């Protein structure tokens, strides 16, 4: 039986995401990095009580529409761009482990901020570097590590502080997810992945950071077509691959 991790639809790819799952959501903040179709499929599935991790808590559906217009003077935002905010907005998220839970300014209130004010969502604030390293540690079988980042600040919380080389360090624990949903550029049917430019970001970091990693890709290529010197994520870290549609599906409610 040849190895074939390609699944036929986004709905199928997330069909076993149970309520209460811990989900690493790839992406960073721009319009090209999120696993938009997997996020949409999770919204359709409606799994509840999720813990999500990632950089940014994301925009509501309405805010996305506004962003697409507002940003058009800087660069074109694709119509099929969805961020984790649509999961937050729909009340599917119980907790966020995030670096940007709310925006810096007062201009825009993202769904996560609104729910946080109402006490309807829990926040574990963490810097991007410690989050990335905790997920990498999960992939790499490192139970915990000492980082110089955070002692004496909001991110210390109840973490152990220990001094190395004359500096205080925090003990950070590996953070293994139930699912990583990520976006990549190309995949083969074994699950080898390459990314595109700055869309690598948390996507490559989260690959292998969970029991199951699901990759949304622009293209599936023949086995052997990816340069073995340039494969960023090797096959074992990826359990499912789904290809993005040729024609953008612009309403997240549309099954695909």
């Amino acid at each position, binding site marked *: 039986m040849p190895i074939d991790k390609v699944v036929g639809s986004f709905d199928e790819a997330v069909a076993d995401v149970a309520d209460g799952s811990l989900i690493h959501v790839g992406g960073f903040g721009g319009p090209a990095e999120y696993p938009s179709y997997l996020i949409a499929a999770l919204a359709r599935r409606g799994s509840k009580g999720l813990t999500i991790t990632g950089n940014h808590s994301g925009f509501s559906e309405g805010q996305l529409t506004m962003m697409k217009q507002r940003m058009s003077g800087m*660069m074109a935002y694709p119509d099929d761009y969805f961020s984790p905010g649509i999961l937050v907005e729909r009340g599917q998220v119980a907790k966020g482990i995030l670096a940007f839970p709310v925006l810096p300014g007062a201009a825009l209130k993202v769904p996560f901020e609104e729910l946080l004010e109402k006490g309807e969502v829990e926040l574990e604030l963490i810097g991007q570097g410690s989050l990335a390293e905790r997920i990498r540690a999960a992939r790499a079988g490192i139970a915990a590590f000492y980082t110089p980042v955070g002692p004496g600040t*909001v991110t210390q919380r109840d973490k152990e502080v220990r001094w190395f080389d004359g500096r205080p360090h925090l003990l950070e624990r590996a953070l293994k997810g139930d699912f990583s949903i990520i976006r990549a550029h190309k995949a083969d049917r074994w699950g080898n992945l390459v990314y595109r430019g700055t869309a690598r*970001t948390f996507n490559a970091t989260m690959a292998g950071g969970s029991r199951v990693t699901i990759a949304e890709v622009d293209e599936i290529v023949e086995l052997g077509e990816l340069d073995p010197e340039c494969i960023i994520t090797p096959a074992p870290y990826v359990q499912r691959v789904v290809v993005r549609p040729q024609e953008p599906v612009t309403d997240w409610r549309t099954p695909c």
Partner: protein
Amino acid sequence: MSAPRFEDKPRLDDWAMAMRAAQELEEGGKVFNLGFGIPMLISSFVDREAEVLLHSENGVIGFGPVIEDPERADRYCINGGGQPVEKRPGVAFMSHEESFALIRGGWVDVTFLGALQVAANGDLANWKVPGKISGALGGGQDLAFCAKSVVCITTHQTKDGTPKIVNRLSLDITAPECVKRIISDIAVIDITPDGLVLREVLPGWTPDEVQQVTEPELSVTSDLVEMAL
């Protein structure tokens, strides 16, 4: 501390502060990180021929200026603020874990960060705006803790005139004793083991006037110069 507003005096805008900050850059392989906010503007003031190594925490090193023309913008090459930036020869992409390995490992020589408050001992507060339930920590905390040098770019006072350079932080700390230099809209101030040293003053301001809008005591040395762009 209440401070005079000096509403009639000149002040640099965000772009001008970024232009002054660009003078901190140098060629030769040092790594400069441009943080979220005003610092992102700096890349537009780098001479295209100059080989200045710019890093952005979302995983790109060796990039060029922000692309102003939406037709030429590539959404697969953005900076930490989501703006499209030029790929230039030598550019490399990396994952988030690798990008922060570079930061945490001390390979960033200078990071430029925004600030809400900077204390006399170099403590930085820049992640949580007063009144918000939480804030935007982003990658700034890793940068503030681990870069060899932190340069803050900030207005000298809040909109209501309150000094942002203070004896002790009243806002939530991002990282302790990290800021080495402050580039504000009216002055350049170094934080040294001997206290705050006023290095540059914007024309139209006197050192004494800068002191009136700065909470800790500033020392003025003979090499004080005018701030120039």
